[in-house]
Each structure stands twice: as structure tokens, then as C-alpha cells.
């Protein structure tokens, strides 16, 4: 059973989002990293890029497949996790911590409320596994 922390919001496309003092931090869920297998590259967005909620803005390549990563909320990309260039395996090892992808300064924080809570996301994962 994969780990879905209660304090995060989740997109149905398997990104997580966390509001902190500097904006909304985004990564991929434990369920997603497990399904992908070993991550070998992450292609991150540009800092300063304006993004819409639901827009494809990053790519994660694993041993198994390439997957698009969508912006869970709209805004401006303020930071990207450059450490993933040399250590893509961090996404597998610490998906909710050092394996974060990017941080967005949101246009509207309330968009976070439109994402799934942990319980609803865990239910979706359980359904996908069947």
C-alpha cells in the first residue's frame, strides 16, 4: 500500500501539491513513483514560466515509460529542483521530500481546494490497482 500523507492535496494525474510560505510545492506521489519504477531523467519547466492548471510542464522518464507532469494549479514557476538532474532516483527514494519537482507562485490559492484530498486520492489509486 502506498503512502498518501494527509496534509497534501493530489491531482488525479498523480501530482501532489503542498502550500507553504513560498508558494505551492509540487511533486509526484508515492503511488506514481512506484508505478513508474526507477526514474532516470526529469525534464523540469523554466523558472519564470507562466503555467495554467492542467498544463503539461514537465516530463519524468523512468526505466519503464515517459510520463507528462501537469501543473496542479496555475501561476508562475518560481523554483525547480535542480538536484534531480544528478539524482533522479531521489524521486523514488523521497517522493514527498527531496524528490519535489517545482514550486509555483499561484494566481489563486483556492485552486488547491479543487484537488483531491488524501482519502479520495488513495481511493482512486486503489481503484487503478484493480
Amino acid at each position, binding site marked *: 500500500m502506498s503512502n498518501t500523507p494527509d496534509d497534501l492535496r493530489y491531482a488525479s494525474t498523480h501530482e501532489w501539491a503542498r502550500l507553504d510560505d513560498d508558494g505551492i510545492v509540487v511533486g509526484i506521489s508515492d503511488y506514481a513513483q512506484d508505478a513508474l*519504477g526507477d526514474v532516470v*531523467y526529469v525534464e523540469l519547466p523554466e523558472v519564470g514560466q507562466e503555467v495554467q492548471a492542467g498544463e503539461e510542464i514537465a*516530463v519524468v522518464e523512468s526505466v519503464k515509460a*515517459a510520463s507528462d507532469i501537469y501543473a496542479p494549479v496555475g501561476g508562475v514557476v518560481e523554483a525547480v529542483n535542480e538536484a534531480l538532474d544528478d539524482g533522479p*532516483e531521489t524521486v523514488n527514494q523521497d517522493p514527498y521530500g527531496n524528490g519535489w519537482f517545482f514550486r509555483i507562485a499561484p494566481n489563486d490559492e483556492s485552486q488547491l481546494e479543487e484537488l483531491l484530498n488524501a482519502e479520495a486520492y488513495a481511493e482512486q489509486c486503489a481503484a487503478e490497482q484493480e
Partner: protein
Amino acid sequence: MSDSHRKTALHDACLAAGAKMAPFAGWSLPLHFGSQIAEHRAVRAAAGLFDVSHMAVFDVDGPGALPLLRRVLAGDAARLTNEGQALYTLMLNESAGIIDDLLAYRHGDGYRLVANAANRQAVGGWLKDQRRSAVTVTERDLAMLALQGPKALALFEDVHGAGADRLKPFHAMALGDWMVARTGYTGEAGLEIILPNADAPGLWSCLIAAGAAPAGLGARDTLRLEAGLKLHGQDMGADTTPLEAGLQWTVHRQPEERPFIGREALAAQAAEGAGNRIFGLLLQGRGVLRGGQRVFTAAGEGVITSGIFSPTLGYSIAFARLPSNAAGAMEVLIRGKRQQARLVRPPFVRGGRPAFQELN
């Protein structure tokens, strides 16, 4: 996982070792045991253990066995003069298309063939269609383990003390009713052990306890591709000839009077030249080459037949079917973007180090 998939004798042992199972050729098999890349590295550095019980095993016996095999295999089974000797060979159709690539062993008074699981019906059916009198073809229900890596032989010897570490490559020995063969699909030294299903869990546990790392199909695929070994169904198929697959070295043209199936079609193609063939490619930029991606060369377009991220090299490598005269710069279309790739001669990795030769 659907119950319609066949389970090997090692199914429970694999689950207990943390396997993530995946369907493959009608079987439920371990894809990985946590990290495919860690398993790959364990095989390059020490020893890994694979459940390959899905492979199809046929015993071909009787006075008609050798005449049958000399006709249905492109390699000459008459060269298997010693007990346990093995031959990597191809089964061809009349158009010289590859029905399967397989290992043929001298086994007792007859022969044993080990074929790809996905081609069980094709190989079994072809053997039965082509047989004449005085030959029996028996499909065996046996387990198969592959113990692979630079420490594999010593590890097996520590556990069994049978002298298997003195086996020469492409030779097998009997160990009771087990067959222990110095063969594999990783480019490393190693053994493949074919044994009764009932014995398999015991051997698995002993080898894991002795230090072999359980490894799955994911690592098997990256190991074989680094080693320059092709996969039937991807890099070759019933519409590919040995020339196109770069496997003409396995075809025995001598003696000339041996009329194996596909011989004439192959000779005709050799005379006029194959239009395309399999090349090695590498991509040193970011991204991963994968099967199905289009390749653009000055000589025309081609396609990636299998591609991986190489854990040993740290970048992506692939086999691609390209026009035979392909040379120079080429580009691969990866997720809508064209990226530069280089043509190389496989193997990509030998002895844990880069081994490819640059072409152009």
C-alpha cells in the same frame, strides 16, 4: 493481476522476496524486486538470480531427432557432438523469417531446445509439422533459474560443489535430474539451471541465502540490450531474416548439402543484399530511446526496435532497424523533438565497461 496468467513454481518465493509481478507472454513474472537498476548493477558486479521458468523446453528424441533438427534449425545440430554441448541458433520459415531464436543442447541420447515463452506454440507446432518418422517431440513442464554475474559460478559451486564452475561457455552438465548450463542472456558469466518444479524453491532459497540478488524481467531486458543480445518479437520476428537481424553468424552454410528450411531464401537475399538491418544507437543527450520511435538518416527512415536507459553507461542505448547503408548523423524523434543519436557497433557493454565501436 488476473488469475488467467500461469504461475511458475517460484511464484510464492518471488512474492516473498518483494517481487512486483507483471504479465509476460501469458505468465505472471517478477518485473523487479524494488529497483530494476539496483538489480542490473548486482548482476554486473556480483550475481543476480532470475526466475525464467516461462521459457519453453522441448525434448527431441529418437533416431529421427538429428535429421529433424538439421532441417528446422539454421545452425547445424550435427556440430553438437558432445553431451551437454549447446548452440545458439535460429528456427526459420521458408522465407528465412525467424520463427524463434533458441538454444539447442545435446541432451542424453537426444536434444533439448529452449525457446522463448511467447513462441511456445509456434516452435512446438513447427517441430510437429516438420517431423517425419522415428522422432518424438515432448514439451517439458520444468522450472528454470538463471544465475548470472561475475560471481555466479563461484556462488553456485559454494552451494553445490558439483564442478559447474569448470563448465566451458555453451556447455551443460547433468546434476541428478537437473541440467546446469553455462549459458545466459546478460553478457556476464553465469548458469542456467533447468530442474523439476518441486526442486526450484529450494534452489532459489539456497542461492539467495548465499548472496545472489533476486532480479526481474526489467533488469533482464537492460542487461541483454547492453550485451548486444537481440530479443525475438522486438529486434527480430517472422518477417525478419538473419541478415536483417545481424544474426547471419549463427547460420551454418557448411556443409552445402544440408537443406535447412529457409536456406534458399536466405541465399537469395544474401546475393542481392538486405534493404535494412539492425544497428546499435546511442543518445548522449537527455531522454530515453524506446521501441517504436522514428529514426531519420540520410539513407532514409528507420525505427527503434528496443531501447533502454543503460544503467552501466548512464545514457540511453537502442537497437534500430535502419536502411543497410545508413551512416553519418542521424536523429530520433523523441516526444515530438528530434534529437541527435550516434551509430555504434554493439555490444554496448562487456565486463561492466563500455565496449561499443563507433561507426561512420
